[in-house]
């Protein structure tokens, strides 16, 4: 009962509640990318360091399990960071010609936060993965 009451209270003051990790537009970007569809957790490997001493350049590798054939392949992978001033980081575009749905780049992280990857398949399915990175020195300058 107490739990139910708590949920109602949260819903009522929903506008005022600021979740720990949703200060920027990450949720909106994901919603726009998936067209409102809820992505399934899995099939994505997101490699980032546990602790990044320098948030200016954090290596990130994303790979998605897929045969990458004309019948079944990954079309796009969206990467967002939920604690940066702006959530968008990078979007990768693949095709069967990519052979493997894998890419690596270096990103800026302002503070400790979650990196979220969402992959879109050619059949319209969406998958997601999340990884927290602890940042010692932020990477967004002044």
């Amino acid at each position, binding site marked *: 009962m107490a739990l139910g009451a708590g949920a109602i209270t949260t819903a009522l003051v929903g506008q005022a509640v600021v979740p720990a990790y949703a200060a920027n537009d990450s949720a909106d970007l994901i919603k726009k990318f998936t067209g409102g569809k809820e992505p399934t957790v899995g099939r994505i490997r997101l490699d980032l360091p546990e602790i990044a001493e320098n948030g*200016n*350049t*954090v290596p990130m*590798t994303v790979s998605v399990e897929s045969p*990458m054939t004309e019948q079944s392949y990954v079309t796009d992978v969206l990467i967002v*960071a939920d604690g*940066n*001033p*702006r959530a*968008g*980081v*990078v*979007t*990768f*575009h*693949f*095709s*069967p*010609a*990519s*052979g*493997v749905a*894998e*890419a*690596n*780049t*270096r*990103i*800026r*992280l302002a503070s400790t936060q979650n990196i979220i990857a969402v992959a879109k398949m050619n059949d319209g399915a969406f998958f997601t993965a999340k990884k927290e990175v602890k940042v010692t020195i932020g*990477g*967004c*300058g*002044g």
Partner: protein
Amino acid sequence: MAAAAVRPRIKLEKKSAKKGEIVEVKALVAHIMETGQRKDSAGKTIPRKILNKFTCTVNGKEVFSADFEPAVSANPYIQFKFRALESGPVILTWTDDDGSTIVGQDSITVT
């Protein structure tokens, strides 16, 4: 720095590959990637200037591309793979916010 003067560094894992083999590409290009969120000493916002688009074609066919946001580090590094199907030029193109492009080239021989 004039974007046209920038020479990207490109490394193909192999110069020749069997048909269907996967080839890894690593590329690094010098660019400030100014986020548009920083302020100068006078408190004025420094205008955004980033490379916002990256594309790789092999023998004229796109194999991989990416949209960069300001959260991509300065001197952006990109690593990806493609399936070697045809011999030909491997052309990497970065597009600046100002519309200019940085182009780098290598080639692959498919046996």
